């Protein structure tokens, strides 16, 4: 077993275990803090997939932004300890179908070989940020500008929703 595999399994274990804590913990503060390790483990898995920009984005946005937001949400709630978050079984058959589709797709993906996708050689310095920037500024200029419109809509929507909450 190589060092790469060891690192992968360690981070995969961290991700899965902390994810289990998020799901099963009764104290939502523990769940929220455990989510930190889940996000971090996912970022490490991105690094192992040679997606360095995605990994840094994961840290910057999920750990630095969304998790903080989530913790504020937790701090705003009344009940923190022993919150029963399980709900009764509803819509069993549609849920079963969707789970079957997702599981089948994932299993199919993991057994299929990717055609036309260049597999990066393991090791060696590769940075995707420059390529991404080149693509965003040339081939994908319109999606890039549309992203700013989407962000604008999200900003105004978030501000409006929060404002209504405050006034009531």
């Amino acid at each position, binding site marked *: 077993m190589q060092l790469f595999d060891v*690192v992968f399994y360690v981070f995969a274990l961290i991700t899965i275990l902390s994810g289990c804590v998020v799901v099963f913990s009764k104290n939502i503060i523990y769940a929220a803090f455990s989510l930190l390790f889940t996000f971090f483990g996912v970022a490490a898995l991105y*690094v192992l997939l040679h997606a*360095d*920009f995605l*990994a*840094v*984005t994961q840290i*910057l*946005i999920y750990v*630095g*932004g*969304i998790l*903080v*937001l989530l913790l*504020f*949400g937790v*701090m*705003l709630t*009344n009940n*923190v300890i022993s919150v029963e978050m399980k709900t009764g079984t509803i819509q069993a058959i549609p849920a079963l179908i969707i789970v079957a589709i997702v599981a089948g797709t994932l299993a199919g993906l993991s057994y299929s070989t990717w055609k036309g996708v260049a597999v990066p050689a393991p*090791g*060696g*310095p590769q940075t995707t*940020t*420059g390529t*991404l*920037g*080149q693509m*965003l*500024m*040339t081939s994908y*200029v319109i999606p*890039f*500008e549309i*992203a*700013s*419109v989407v*962000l*604008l809509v*999200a*900003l*105004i929507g*978030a*501000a409006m929703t*929060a*404002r209504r*909450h*405050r006034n009531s």
Partner: protein
Amino acid sequence: MITDFGRVLIFLIVGVVFVAGGLIVAWLLRPNRPYPSKLATYECGEVPVGDTRVRFNVRFYVVALIFLIFDVEVVFLFPWAVVYKNLGWFAFIEMLVFLGMLAVGYAYVWRKGDLDWDKPAPKVPRYEKGIGVQETRMTEEEIAV
């Protein structure tokens, strides 16, 4: 040959070992003689009062929500900054349009007062003739004075 993220991993391991090592060594060395006032929550030397949990002001949440949008914006700046030198004016104008869009949103939340911190009005005891001391909320004009 160690990659860039290999160095990050080394930093990570050193960080974890440093913190965990310090805690474990302290746990091994320190005497363990607890008594109630030692185990009590430290509150600047005072006797602890009330619950630990305080509900945060909802304003924190709103500001964090707005921050998140600009966080995403900053992420887009990085790939642009890397290739900026090669592309020149075109990239500059592209980013100006992108930032301009979000500046509109920024102006919107600023104008609508979503960035303002609404402070609760201070309560001051006030004497009124015949009534005695009672707590009243100060009006806006009184605060301004």
